[in-house]
């Protein structure tokens, strides 16, 4: 092949991988075959740099019905004949190139992953990262991504119930767009994706196939950013209306009994969906590209097989049911078309104009090589971990610092984002965005509810990949636990740089080790996930960013614990490390970053303490002792209390023992495993006794009152004043 190097460049395969392919198939592959390998051996589909690490995640529990990796997403049995399926996925690279469509199609893709299991998508969440808003490019990306999520998500009738948006210099030009979808299904209607019966038909339904998104998986998602390359043609354009009718059509098909298996066509389009179905079924396939509905004439087999046109689903149907399936979709004005047959050959045979144009052994095609890249502890760690923490500033500036933090785009209200998303359709949302640490969806069939939260703090992962990974799992679960819900499973999205760099691989390795340990300590399996590597711009990696979505179950939604203060005269307590803290609470804090522009220090995390805290929360929640509970994270104790006040419209009088020479770390320092709770004064002692049993420190901070916010002699202002800063922070940063 003359232009072999060019082809390898396009398909993101290395020379060694090419040689491996030749050895395995005993000849040179043709261009189409090379394209198939490129797609299936891409990082995006083949997980070649991450698979050996991902295998270390705990993936099972009594409630796990389908494990991670078996299907598009794992399934949790929540009883009453119901299953929950959820997954988070990245669309970082497309969003960096074309923010509106990149984010929109990210929503579309994750929804179809859930749909393929026969589940109705009932909620969306997203975790977004951008560079600082002072740069015009970052504001453009932010606006485009939010508009894309709004435009697509609102049109398909799935509520967007929660998420997070954070800003840090490390995401300059490389935003993160991680979208999570939760689905609900009758366990007995669970769909699988394996094509097990030879003679079955492959049918496609939804959009016609166009020339969009070719090389999306191999070219865009599996390579670093390169400013010189025009990548926009590799981003697909979404059609949310088609997605909406596809949801209704596919759910009717799934419950009809006429469809044996279902698979969405995401990254690498027809190639990955068809090959995954037959590989799982241990079968083969004869596929005729001439039968695939196309948007334009003259498309080659290569383009048809690698197109990433959106809103397409693959169905495996027995011939006797073909007409039933066609008429089922015709109701929704959708055309389901047969494009091939499942065979017993174990081979993928692609036909074009009556001729075989690709003929490959399926196990060879889908088994990407697995690499164990070199790992090296990054040199920056020694430097940053030992940075001396600054001394306490002048205490006269306390209110100014407090407001600086409340106004920080990382802390201030995201109302201007979530009010652009429909968060109520389907009428399950009982805790809405802005109201709680986790969103809560009631199940209409019973009094039960699902709490969902998505979290990650890359500053911690940057300074200690192990601690950051463990904390991401812990924080997502804690946000679920503060509502009184029991965390039962997590999903994860790992956003890292180029894994072929030993320092990046070290971060990935350590982060996954931390996450696994946290999952074991907290008793939550990983049921699905996604890896987004090569997040680099001009050779510079993003901060390693592990995003975790946690799901919990609460038996009675009437017993939900609110986040904000509810009554005047309630006792306010800090559970976890108390007020006698020093500069050890400063590493990786928002305070350190905003005040001193420092992202440094050595963060610590005690998993045993975390597990005790979450057990404590569930016990006192079930006893009905708490009037509110709020996770204490970015901005420390002062910001956490302020949030309880602002959302609840209730004041606070800090009468506890706040005296400490490091008043700044007391107020704004961040330590994991801390929760602000409020309760009737009559039950304070009971709470303290239970905390003691869990060996948890518990500190009386003060009492709720009308209007004003006061902390000892340190801080006095009105709630109105704080509200104003909190709700206008993001807008001011944008303008």
């Amino acid at each position, binding site marked *: 092949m003359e232009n072999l190097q060019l082809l390898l460049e396009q398909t993101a395969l290395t020379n060694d991988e090419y040689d491996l392919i030749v050895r395995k198939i005993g000849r040179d592959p043709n261009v189409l075959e090379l394209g198939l390998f490129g797609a299936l051996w891409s990082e995006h589909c083949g997980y070649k740099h991450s698979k050996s690490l991902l295998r270390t995640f705990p993936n099972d529990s009594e409630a796990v019905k389908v494990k991670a990796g078996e299907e598009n997403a794992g399934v949790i049995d929540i009883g009453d004949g119901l299953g929950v399926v959820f997954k988070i996925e990245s669309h970082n690279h497309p969003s960096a190139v074309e923010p509106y469509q990149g984010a929109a199609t990210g929503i579309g893709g994750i929804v179809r992953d859930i749909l393929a299991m026969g589940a109705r998508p009932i909620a969306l969440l997203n975790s977004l990262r951008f560079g600082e808003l002072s740069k015009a490019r970052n504001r453009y990306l932010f606006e485009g991504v939010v508009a894309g999520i709004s435009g697509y998500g609102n049109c398909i009738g799935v509520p967007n119930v929660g998420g997070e948006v954070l800003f840090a210099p490390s995401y300059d030009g490389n935003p993160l767009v991680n979208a999570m979808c939760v689905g609900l299904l009758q366990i007995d209607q669970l769909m699988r994706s394996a094509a097990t019966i030879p003679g079955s038909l492959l049918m496609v339904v939804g959009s016609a196939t166009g020339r969009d998104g070719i090389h999306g998986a191999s070219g865009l998602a599996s390579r670093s950013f390169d400013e010189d390359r025009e990548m926009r043609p590799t981003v697909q354009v979404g059609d949310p*209306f088609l997605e909406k009718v596809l949801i209704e059509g596919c759910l009717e098909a799934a419950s009809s009994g006429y469809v044996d298996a279902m698979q969405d066509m995401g990254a690498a389009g027809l190639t990955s969906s068809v090959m995954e179905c037959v590989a799982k079924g241990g079968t083969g396939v004869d596929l005729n590209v001439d039968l695939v509905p196309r948007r334009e004439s003259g498309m080659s087999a290569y383009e048809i097989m690698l197109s990433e046109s959106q809103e397409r689903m693959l169905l495996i149907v027995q011939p006797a049911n073909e007409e039933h399936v066609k008429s089922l979709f015709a109701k929704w004005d959708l055309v389901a078309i047969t494009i091939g047959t499942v065979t017993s050959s174990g081979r993928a045979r692609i036909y074009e104009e009556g001729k075989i144009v690709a003929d490959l052994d399926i196990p060879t095609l889908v088994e990407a090589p697995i690499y164990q890249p070199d790992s090296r502890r990054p040199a920056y760690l020694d430097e940053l971990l030992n940075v001396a923490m600054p001394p306490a500033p002048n205490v006269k500036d306390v209110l100014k610092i407090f407001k600086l933090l409340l106004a920080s785009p990382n802390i201030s209200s995201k109302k201007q984002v979530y009010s652009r998303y429909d968060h109520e359709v389907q009428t399950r949302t009982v805790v809405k965005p802005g109201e709680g640490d986790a969103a809560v969806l009631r199940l209409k069939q019973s009094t039960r509810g699902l709490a969902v939260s998505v979290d990650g703090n890359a500053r911690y992962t940057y300074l200690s990949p192990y601690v950051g990974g463990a904390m991401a799992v812990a924080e997502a679960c804690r946000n679920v636990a503060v509502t009184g819900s029991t965390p039962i499973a997590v999903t994860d999205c790992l956003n890292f740089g180029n894994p072929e760099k030993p320092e990046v691989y070290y971060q990935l390795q350590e982060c996954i080790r931390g996450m696994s340990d946290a999952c074991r300590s907290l008793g939550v399996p990983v049921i699905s996930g996604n890896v987004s590597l090569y997040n680099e711009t001009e050779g510079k990696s993003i901060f390693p960013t592990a995003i975790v979505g946690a799901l919990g179950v609460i038996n009675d939604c009437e017993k939900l614990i609110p986040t904000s203060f509810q009554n005047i005269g309630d006792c306010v307590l800090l559970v976890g490390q108390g007020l006698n803290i020093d500069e050890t609470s400063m590493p990786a804090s928002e305070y350190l970053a905003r005040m001193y522009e420092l992202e440094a220090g050595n963060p610590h995390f005690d998993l045993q303490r975390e597990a005790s805290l979450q057990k404590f929360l569930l016990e006192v929640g079930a006893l009905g002792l708490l009037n509110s509970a709020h996770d204490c994270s970015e901005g420390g104790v002062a910001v956490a209390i302020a949030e309880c006040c602002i959302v609840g419209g209730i004041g606070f009088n800090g009468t506890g023992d706040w005296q400490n020479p490091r008043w700044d770390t007391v107020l704004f320092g961040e330590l994991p495993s801390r929760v602000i709770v409020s309760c009737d004064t009559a039950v304070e002692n009971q709470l303290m006794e239970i905390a003691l049993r869990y060996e948890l420190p518990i500190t009386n901070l003060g009492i709720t009152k009308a209007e004003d916010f006061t902390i000892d002699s340190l801080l006095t202002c009105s709630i109105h004043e704080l509200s104003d800063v909190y709700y206008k922070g993001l807008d001011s940063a944008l303008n």
Partner: protein
Amino acid sequence: MSNKFGVLVFPGTWSEGDWLYALSEVMGLNAEYVFHKQTNLHEFDCLVIPGGFSYGDYLRPGAIARFSPVMGSLIKFANAGGPVVGSCNGFQVLCEAGLLPGALIRNKSLEFRCQSQNLRVANNNSPFTSELDIDEILSLPISHGDGNYFVDEQTLAQMESNGQIAFQYCNSDGEITDESNPNGSVSNIAGVTNESGNVLGLMPHPERVVEQILGGTDGLKLLASINNFLSRPEN
């Protein structure tokens, strides 16, 4: 025989499940879906056009749905005095179909808005508002990008004198202010009726606030109004 509600479903509609749940599960009424290809509507006593993005609303909200097979029958049903309520996209469809005056254009902010909203009841002489008091304040959620109601001044004056303004966006004290207008609509209009009062369109979603656990029950007042009206002996 109890009253029967028909809840229309166009491709792209997404509030039909919430309406059916509110009517049948919460209120215990007789309700079922009417798919857009159905043309026989004789069995229904009231028709609901729910929210969503019918046909993707790619041309103009409601502009395609208006030509759906069911709409010819719905227009006949309405012209014969049958009660029809359209919420959100349903309001847009009713305007496009000419059953209601005016048009719904892009929100003034150019952005989608999903939030709770105070509404003042401007009149109670339609089947849908019969159980409400004039100047009563309701809290209903909105969720739309094209809710900016527009009519010319002359039509507005006629509508006002006919008592066709059903709901107006207001603040918590019931005052009609610019700050309480979420989309820039003329005269803060959130909902209007036709001249004879049997067709109501409103941007808010009453079906979303029918249980305390969802944050309120003001939507029930509206739904109960319709049912009580239909149950009167003269109907």
